[in-house]
């Protein structure tokens, strides 16, 4: 069955065979597979469309917005509190600024918040969670997980409010507040995922191979835990925006001239119900972004929960 002398191909031949399937082809194939799983549920596709549109609008805000100068200090009392019309599809606020333009710029600030908070929070939480999960039952585990328990025991919004109110209200401080509230959730998620993977045979195998503990944690175990983490990250885009908006709403976030969605809702709230458009449109935008990213998250969950075997 097994021949004694094994034929060994020349390196040239090996290289040629390896090149037959190029890396780009493999990537295309994976993307096709992911899209197949993702698009099984039409709602995920809707979610993808919504979130992609929002992100595109936010990035292209200065080009897309009809009156980019209305995003900052701009007063034109002649046009104050105009109801929605062709000229101002979302109406104008009490300073005569175009609400549509401000909403588009507002999305920009919301996504900046997300883009700062999540890259800060996810690595911190995940690294701590992986450490705690791998050294389950040891001192490291107790210190990290009890610390995260303390943070989790207070509702995130209340916690963020408390932290933000201690500091001077500003955009950066609200980012810090949200980040401090958010990491324990990732630590817990990574902790549970790692604990469930830890006793799999491949981990035991890596251990008897003689690999270092860091390598086992981050090369062997962590990739197998990425599914739930990525899913949560997508869902959290919406939630971080919501908490950021809540902070701005109570005046602890970005300060008035900045077209932050939460601040805009707060500014418009005393004009209700007569000039409803000043409040309703920013509020709806927040809802739509959250809805879009939740649906997108569901789709991403579908990609990962597909049976691997």
């Amino acid at each position, binding site marked *: 069955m*097994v021949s004694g002398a094994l034929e060994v191909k020349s390196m040239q031949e090996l290289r040629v065979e*390896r090149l037959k399937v190029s890396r780009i082809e493999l990537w295309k194939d994976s993307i096709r597979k992911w899209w197949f799983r993702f698009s099984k549920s039409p709602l995920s596709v809707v979610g993808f469309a919504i979130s992609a549109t929002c992100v595109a609008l936010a990035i292209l805000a200065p080009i897309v917005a009809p009156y980019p100068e209305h995003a900052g200090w701009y007063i034109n009392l002649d046009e104050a509190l105009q109801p929605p019309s062709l000229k101002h599809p979302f109406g104008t606020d009490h300073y005569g600024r175009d609400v549509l333009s401000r909403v588009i710029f507002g999305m920009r600030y919301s996504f900046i918040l997300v883009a700062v908070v999540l890259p800060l929070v996810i690595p911190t939480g995940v690294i701590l969670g992986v450490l705690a999960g791998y050294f389950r039952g040891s001192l490291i585990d107790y210190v990290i997980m009890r610390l995260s328990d303390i943070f989790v025991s207070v509702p995130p919004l209340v916690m963020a409010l408390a932290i933000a109110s201690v500091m001077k209200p500003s955009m950066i401080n609200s980012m810090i507040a949200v980040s401090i509230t958010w990491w324990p959730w990732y630590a817990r998620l990574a902790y549970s995922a790692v604990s469930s993977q830890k006793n799999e*045979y491949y981990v*035991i195998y*890596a251990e008897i191979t003689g*690999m270092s503990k860091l390598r086992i944690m981050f090369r062997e175990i962590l990739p*197998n835990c990425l599914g739930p983490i990525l899913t949560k990250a997508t869902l959290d885009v919406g939630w971080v925006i919501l908490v950021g908006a809540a902070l701005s709403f109570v005046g602890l976030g970005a300060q008035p001239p900045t077209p932050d969605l939460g601040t805009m809702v707060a500014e418009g709230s005393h004009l209700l119900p007569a000039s409803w458009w000043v409040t309703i449109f920013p509020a709806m935008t927040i809802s739509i972004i959250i809805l879009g990213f939740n649906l997108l998250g569901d789709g991403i969950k579908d990609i990962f929960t597909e049976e691997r075997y």
Partner: protein
Amino acid sequence: MERLLAVENLSVGYRTYRGRSKVLDSVSFEVLRGEKVGIIGETGCGKTTLLRSVLRILPPNALIYGGKVIFKGIDILSSSHDNLNKLRRESIGIIFQDPMSALNPFLRVRDQLYDAIKYSKLIEGYKGKSKDYLRELSINLLKEVALPDPQRVLDSYPFQLSGGMRQRVCIALALTRANELLLADEPTTNLDVTIQEQVLNIIRNLVEERKLSVILVSHALGMLSEFVDRIYVMYAGQMIESGRAEEIFFDPKHPYTRALVASAPKLIGKWEAEALFGRVPDYVNPPEGCRFQSRCPFIKEECRVIKPSPQKISETHWVACHIYGG
């Protein structure tokens, strides 16, 4: 022949919610250099625990009550981490029961094989050579386990392979470090019957070619007796009988071994196999005396009190049962 591995009076248990269990009850056995040893017993009788304690990869709630595992004069259970690592890297390889979870689903076969090679003795030949050498080495390993199209297998993820192919990759992984002893923990249970035969043949050929010692753990006596030189019969964490394969298969002494032989379906005579009723005793409060007493048709007074000691039947054959004195 030189003695390669000796397990002496090994007692292992687990911390459970009901208290401390005593799974292995002073188990002793030995493996000579170049010998194929089989350990047979039903599900839950401590076979996997035994194999895992040989490599000291017991789960965290395991308790070692006593005993020694001596590999080439070194006690594995008390050796330092470095010594243990050296043994794991250079001498002992293990094939796990479940090829589905033995490979990391997120890494390509090549990455896992390269890692295994990099952390093994084979790396000494690799020093100063290019990465192509690593690939060549891996391809040779995969060819040795008779995998068709090793190029494709190397570049695929575990989920793209069938169960038999995955088990062969696992064998190749074990080969990177099994230079003296190969532990096989029911390597064929999760495969379908036609693949079982192939996988066994591959293991047999490799073992004979490389002059390895093997411990093959299984619950299929027929398969085992065909493969190994010597068989140990295990019941509820105790070694109850041992002998050359043909002695156990054709002349079983212990009532449990007899039941095992009788429970295999035969092609001649009565078609129905005889089942053994009852189940393995509780490990938290194991019975006094012989652990087989609750299922034994020949039970005597002393079986309930005294643990039977091994009685010699022939030079190579012994049995621990009160029927044969002791």
